[in-house]
């Protein structure tokens, strides 16, 4: 991929994320009484992106990088608190802002905590953006995700009666840059919907389509006025009214025909007046705070939102599968639709988050004392796992159906200078993994040295071409 296109796609991806992030942050700001600007949260996201890019270049151990990253996160949050809340406060007030907010959590929920909690997912998103691989598939997924989040934000804002500044503009910008980015990524893969001399004009066709949709939207907005809607609804109202009148007439007729039942004399006695029960406020009776109603209403809204989200997801999946099938058919491939593919992708994504969280433990665990006789095997397996991870980061991930020896050929092809080292590691791994052959001390020492020398070839490793670009 050329440097220019790389920059364009990265800008598009960042723009897509910033669009819905800004709206979500604006809504959060309104909810907390505009005590802070949405730009503060957006700045956290951008800071996370920049810091993550820098940290990736460090050659430290993972645990130290994690600790440094965490400290930088706290620092960023601290700076995010400075402008809205502590612009004119002293240093000590500013530095103790977060600890005090946590300390008073039992009594009150301070807006500083809102910024802290909102910063956590934003930080994660910024880190994720810094590691994003630019391809058509990634941009499609981002588009789907962003679109769903935009709609969620609009729905919540309407439910909670919050006005979001520039929401329409942001949404239009999001859709425009997304589709432009998708177009660029699409043509990057050399797969245009048009063949022959019209290849490459796909981008122009896309812009034309966007313009057409916008013009049609404006036309519809101009034509479909409330008067028109009233005109359309008038016969519907008449019909409902007619049915209602007919129903009433039938009920009256039947009532007239039915024999009247005379009440017995004792029943004509005036009933003794019963004191009306005092009007009760159900919430107070139950002892719950009135804010609970808002929470329950939000839960109800989220439930419906979830249903809409699923519907949009399904619609997008269907649309994308049609597009990809069309695309594949043009290139002569047979495509079979996989049921539940996006659900699987979502589950895989959630599982990967869970595994990552579990993996954090390993950074701080002491090395376990392995049972005798198997220290060597665990060591060999650990090195091979590290090799797999190292190669995957360089775009040489092992295919699931590849055996270690088959994978060795792949690695040796990409890294000829490490031919002997890779052969040695693979041979030792195969015997340890499948034969449970514990290596000798000398072999273990040689393995560590071999792995260390292999890892020290970053310059050569970076020249390994990235596999699997595009779809």
């Amino acid at each position, binding site marked *: 991929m050329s440097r220019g296109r790389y920059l364009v796609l990265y800008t598009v991806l960042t723009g897509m994320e910033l669009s819905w992030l800004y709206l979500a942050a604006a809504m959060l700001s309104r909810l907390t009484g505009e005590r802070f600007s949405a730009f503060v949260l957006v700045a956290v996201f951008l800071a996370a992106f920049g810091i993550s890019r820098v940290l990736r270049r460090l050659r430290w151990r993972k645990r130290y990088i994690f600790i440094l990253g965490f400290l930088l996160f706290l620092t960023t949050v601290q700076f995010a608190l400075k402008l809205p809340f502590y612009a004119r406060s002293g240093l000590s007030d500013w530095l103790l802002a977060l600890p005090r907010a946590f300390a008073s959590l039992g009594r009150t929920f301070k807006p500083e905590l809102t910024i802290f909690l909102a910063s956590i997912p934003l930080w994660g998103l910024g880190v994720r953006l810094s590691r994003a691989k630019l391809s058509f598939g990634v941009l499609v997924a981002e588009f789907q995700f962003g679109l769903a989040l935009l709609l969620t934000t609009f729905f919540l804002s309407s439910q909670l009666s919050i006005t979001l500044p520039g929401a329409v503009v942001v949404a239009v910008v999001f859709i425009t840059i997304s589709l432009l980015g998708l177009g660029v990524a699409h043509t990057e893969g050399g797969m245009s919907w048009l063949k022959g001399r019209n290849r490459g004009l796909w981008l122009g066709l896309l812009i034309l389509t966007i313009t057409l949709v916008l013009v049609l939207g404006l036309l519809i907005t101009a034509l479909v006025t409330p008067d028109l809607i009233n005109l359309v609804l008038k016969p519907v109202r008449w019909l409902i009214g007619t049915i209602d009148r007919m129903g009433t007439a039938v009920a009256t007729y039947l009532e007239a025909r039915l024999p009247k039942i005379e009440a017995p004399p004792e029943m004509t006695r005036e009933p003794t007046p019963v004191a009306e029960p005092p009007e009760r406020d159900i919430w107070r009776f139950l002892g719950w705070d009135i804010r609970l109603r808002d929470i329950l209403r939000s839960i109800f809204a989220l439930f419906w939102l979830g249903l809409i989200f699923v519907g949009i997801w399904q619609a997008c999946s269907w649309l994308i599968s049609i597009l990809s099938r069309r695309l594949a058919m043009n290139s002569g491939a047979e495509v079979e639709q996989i049921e539940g593919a996006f659900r699987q992708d979502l589950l895989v994504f959630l599982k990967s988050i869970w595994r990552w969280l579990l993996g954090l433990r390993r950074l701080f665990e002491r090395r376990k004392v392995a049972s005798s006789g198997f220290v060597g095997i665990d060591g060999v*397996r650990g090195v*091979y*796992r590290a090799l*797999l991870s190292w190669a995957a980061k360089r775009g040489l991930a*092992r295919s*699931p*159906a*590849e*055996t*270690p*020896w*088959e*994978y060795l050929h792949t690695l040796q092809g990409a890294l000829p200078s490490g031919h002997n080292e890779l052969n040695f590691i693979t041979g030792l791994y*195969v*015997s340890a*993994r*499948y*034969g*449970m*052959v*514990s290596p000798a001390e000398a072999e273990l020492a040689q393995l560590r040295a071999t792995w260390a020398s292999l890892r020290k070839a970053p310059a050569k490793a970076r020249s390994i071409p990235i596999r699997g670009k595009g779809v």
Partner: protein
Amino acid sequence: MNKPTGVMASEIAGVSEAATRFNANVGKVIVGKSDVIEFVLAALLTEGHILIEDVPGIGKTVLARTVAKSLGLSFKRIQFTPDLLPSDVTGIYYFNQKSSEFEFRPGPIMANIILADEINRATPRTQSCLLECMQERQITVDRETMPLPRPFLIIATQNPIELEGTFPLPEAQLDRFLMKLRLGYPSFDEEKTVIERFQEASPLDSLESVITADELLELQKLCRRVQVHDSLRSYIVQIVHSTRNHEGIELGASPRASLGLLQASQSLAAIKGRGYVIPDDIKRLAVPVLTHRLTARTEARLRGHSLEETVAEVVKSVPVPVE
């Protein structure tokens, strides 16, 4: 937890060394085809039967004879024809007028290595007489069961062309063959070497045995002790299960196929001088061990997908147990 048990390195070296002698000996007659010879040896060490499907004149019979001679085992050839009866294969009881008793005359099946030539030309009735031989390694004639000599191996051949007047082997019988192999045409140089080698006399005539029957039985026992990691057993079962769920396969492989693949992998590992099986062994043997046991769907056949391609596809779809 898998602990390092099983066969010792020195014992496996013996298997590997015997395999080298065998390969070299067979190589004096058969030119090239080292893969096929290795698979044949693996089948021998697994005591599994082999089905060779190939065009005429490719060396199927020569291969079977060479294998028999290299092992110093008795060899019988049965030419399957439509008029062949089961008793022609197994043997009969006949009345000996001199001794006035019924005596059993064993059929050609009573040998260590049987070449069942053009097995698909015999009627299903005659084909089915091999079922008991292949599975239980015994025959039943007139309600008397007799064991077959050990080791016992059937090498059957069939022609993939000229299917008129033939009787395709039933699934039950195909499942009893451990492997189906194809020799294939030799390359230009190989064919030239063949005609040079066979120009004056057949090298088969002067071939000596390199492994005795007892030694072979010992090697077979050693191969059964080759270590198989639990994850590889799961891998084998996963491959076989995938054949049952593949959209292009109507009838998938049976548990017998899983066992066959496991034991053949053990033999192949031993031939390579390893005391343990690796995934490469299983992948290499998947096509010869599984292909003939499957039935393709009509749609797959019409699309021109061969079963070999389908099995290769299945193997590619099953993840190998690595970290």
